[in-house]
C-alpha cells in the first residue's frame, strides 16, 4: 500500500495542477460555490439576526448589516445567557440536552458494537434471521411507539415504583431503543469487512471473545463507531418530539423545546430563536468537525470493501 501511494502521489499532484487550469473545472467550482452559498443563506441570516439588536428585526432587513456593520452587538447573547443556570433558561436546557444526548449516544455505540460483533463473529444459529428483523425495525417510525412506550413506562412505574415517564432516563431509553437498529446495521456491515483470519489469529494467540472484541475488532471498527456516534448525537440533540412527549411535566427542557416554546406566544421573540438556535448548533458543529475524518471514512467503508 505504501509503495503504491508513493508512486501514485506525484502523478496525482501533476494531474491536479493540470486540472486547475481547465476552464470547465473553473465553471464547475463557481457553480458549486454559488449553490453552497444559496444553501447557507438561512443559516447566515440566522447568524446575523442573532448579532443585531432586538428592536431592528421589524425595521430593516438582516442584509443591511453589510452596509452598516455598526449594527452588530453581543446584546442578545448577553441577555439570553444572563439568566444563568435558572430552570427553564437556555443554559439549563443546554445541560438537559447534554444529559440526554451523551448517555444515549454512548449506549447506542457500545451496545450496537457488541451486538454487531455477535452477529458477525458469533457462532449461534439464526444470526441472519435476527439481523433481518433488526433491519426491518429500521422502518418503524418513532410516533408509532410513543403511546405504547408511555404506557409501558407507567406499567413499569406501577410495578417497581420508578416511572421513567417524565424523567431523563426515560427519554434516554427511548432514544437508545430507536437508535439501535441503525447502529447495529451500520456496525454489522462494517465488521463483515474484517477478515475472519484476524479473529482466528487472535484465538490462537490466546484471546477469548471479550479480548478479541476489545483488542482486535473494536480498534478496527473506530471509523464506523465514530460515524455512528456522530449520527446518533446529532439526531438526539435535534430531537423535539420524543423530548416533548416523554419529558412531560418535567421542569427541565431540552434546547429544542426551549426554542419551540418561544414560537408559541403570539409575538414570537425572533431574537431569542435566532440566538438560541446559534447556541444549539455550536455543539453538533464542533462534534462534526472534530470527527469528520472518521465520518467520511466510516460512511464509505463497508460500501466499497
Amino acid at each position, binding site marked *: 500500500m505504501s509503495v503504491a501511494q508513493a508512486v501514485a502521489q506525484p502523478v496525482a499532484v501533476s494531474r491536479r495542477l493540470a486540472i486547475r487550469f481547465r476552464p470547465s473545472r473553473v465553471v464547475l467550482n463557481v457553480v458549486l460555490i454559488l449553490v453552497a452559498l444559496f444553501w447557507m443563506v438561512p443559516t447566515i441570516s440566522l447568524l446575523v439576526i442573532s448579532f443585531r439588536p432586538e428592536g431592528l428585526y421589524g425595521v430593516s432587513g438582516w442584509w443591511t448589516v453589510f452596509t452598516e456593520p455598526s449594527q452588530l452587538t453581543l446584546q442578545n447573547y448577553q441577555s439570553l445567557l444572563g439568566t444563568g443556570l435558572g430552570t427553564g433558561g437556555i443554559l439549563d436546557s443546554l445541560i438537559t440536552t447534554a444529559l440526554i444526548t451523551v448517555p444515549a449516544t454512548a449506549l447506542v455505540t457500545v451496545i450496537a458494537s457488541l451486538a454487531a460483533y455477535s452477529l458477525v463473529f458469533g457462532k449461534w444459529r439464526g444470526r441472519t434471521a435476527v439481523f433481518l428483523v433488526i433491519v426491518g425495525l429500521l422502518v418503524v417510525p418513532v410516533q408509532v411507539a410513543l403511546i405504547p412506550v408511555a404506557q409501558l413506562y407507567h406499567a413499569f412505574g406501577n410495578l417497581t415504583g420508578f416511572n421513567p415517564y417524565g424523567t431523563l432516563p426515560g427519554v434516554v431509553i427511548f432514544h437508545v431503543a430507536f437508535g439501535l437498529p441503525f447502529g447495529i446495521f451500520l456496525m454489522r456491515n462494517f465488521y463483515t469487512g474484517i477478515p475472519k483470519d484476524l479473529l482466528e489469529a487472535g484465538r490462537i494467540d*490466546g484471546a477469548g471473545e471479550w479480548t478479541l472484541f476489545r483488542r482486535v475488532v473494536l480498534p478496527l471498527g473506530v471509523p464506523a463507531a465514530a460515524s455512528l456516534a456522530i449520527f446518533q448525537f446529532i439526531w438526539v440533540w435535534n430531537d423535539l418530539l420524543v423530548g416533548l412527549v416523554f419529558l412531560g411535566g418535567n421542569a427541565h427542557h431540552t434546547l429544542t423545546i426551549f426554542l419551540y416554546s418561544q414560537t408559541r406566544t403570539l409575538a414570537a421573540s425572533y431574537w431569542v430563536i435566532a440566538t438560541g438556535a446559534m447556541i444549539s448548533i455550536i455543539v453538533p458543529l464542533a462534534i462534526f468537525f472534530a470527527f469528520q475524518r472518521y465520518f467520511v471514512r466510516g460512511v464509505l467503508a463497508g460500501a466499497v470493501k
Partner: protein
Amino acid sequence: MARVALEELTKRYAGGNLAVDRLNLDIADGEFVCLVGPSGCGKTTALRMIAGLEDITSGRVRIGEKVVNLLPPRDRDIALVFQSYALYPHMSVYDNMAFGLQLRKTPKPQIEKAVKEAARILDLERFLDRKPGQLSGGQRQRVALGRAIVREPAAFLMDEPLSNLDAKLRVQTRAEIARLHQRLEATMIYVTHDQVEAMTMADRIAVINEGLLQQVGTPKELYEQPHNRFVAGFIGSPSMNFVETASHRNGKAELQGEGVNVVLDDAQAARLRDRGLEAVVVGFRPEHLKVGEPGGPGLRVSARIDVVEFLGNDELIHAVSGGRDTVAIVEADARLAVGDTVSLWAEPRHVYLFDPQSEVSLGGA
C-alpha cells in the same frame, strides 16, 4: 516441542461433504511434515482441526500425549501462520509479535527479549515500530513467522504461507523457513499445494487427495516409489507421463501403447504375470527420457515434436504421438526442432507400472 498425532481424523460438513476421511499421521517431535495435495483436497481442513479452528467430526488429535479435541485453540500450545498473514493492522510490528505473550501474562522484560530475538532472526529489527500496512509482502510474511516464533509453541502450523509472495521471494522465504526449522528444532506442519515446496523443505510428505491420505514418506521415497498413480503424477515437475498399454504380445514381456513400446525386464514381467494383468498403465518421468534407442529392455517413445521450451541448460519438449502428449526434458544441445520425429527411451528402472483399475503401483521400479 512435541509430537503431533492424528488418529482416524475425520471432518464431515453439515451438507454431508466429507472433507477429511480417517486421516492417520504420526508426526515426530521436531519433524517437518508437509501436507500436500490439490486445492480442495482437505489438507487445510486437517490443519485447522489440529489448530482447533474447525470442529472434529470423529477421530483424535494428540499434541504431546494429550488429546486436544475439545480444547480451544489458545490451550493447544500451537502457532498458526496464515496464508493471508492475518496481521493486526492497527498494531505495530512489535505489538503484533508481542500480542500472544501479553495475553498469556508473560512479564514485560521477557516479552521484549523474545520479540527482539525473533526480530533479529527474521531481520525485522528496523521495522518494529511500523504498522503492517507500511511493510512489503515479504516483510509481512516474516512478521507472521515472528508472531509464531516468539510463542515457542509445541508445534508450528503453516497454511500456504508462501503463496502470496512473488516467485523470487518465495524461493528466498522457503530457505528461511527451512533454516528456521533447523534452528528451532520445532515440530512443523506445513500445508501447500505446491509439491516443489513440499519436496524442498519437508522431512516427510503426506500426499492427500479428496480427503484421503495417499502416501506418507520422505521426498525421495515419494519420488522414487510412488504408491499409486495420483502420487506419481503429483510429485515431480513436470508431471510424470502416463500411457495405457496392452500387454504380452506373443508371450513376450512386451507392452504396447499409443506411440509407446515397453520391453519389460524379468522382475517387471514376473509382477505382471503374478497379478494376471492383461493391461497396465505405464508411467515415466520427463527427466528420465533420453534421445535415442534402448539397447535392451526399456521404454521407447516415438513422437513428433510439438513445442520446444528452452530452459537454458535443458529443453522441455512436448511431443505428440497419436492423440497423446509426451513431455521430456533433454539437453539443449540435442538440437531438436518443432516438427521433427524423435525417438526417446528410458531405462527399465525408470518405468512405473500401475494397475489400470485401482491405479495402485505394481511395486518395484
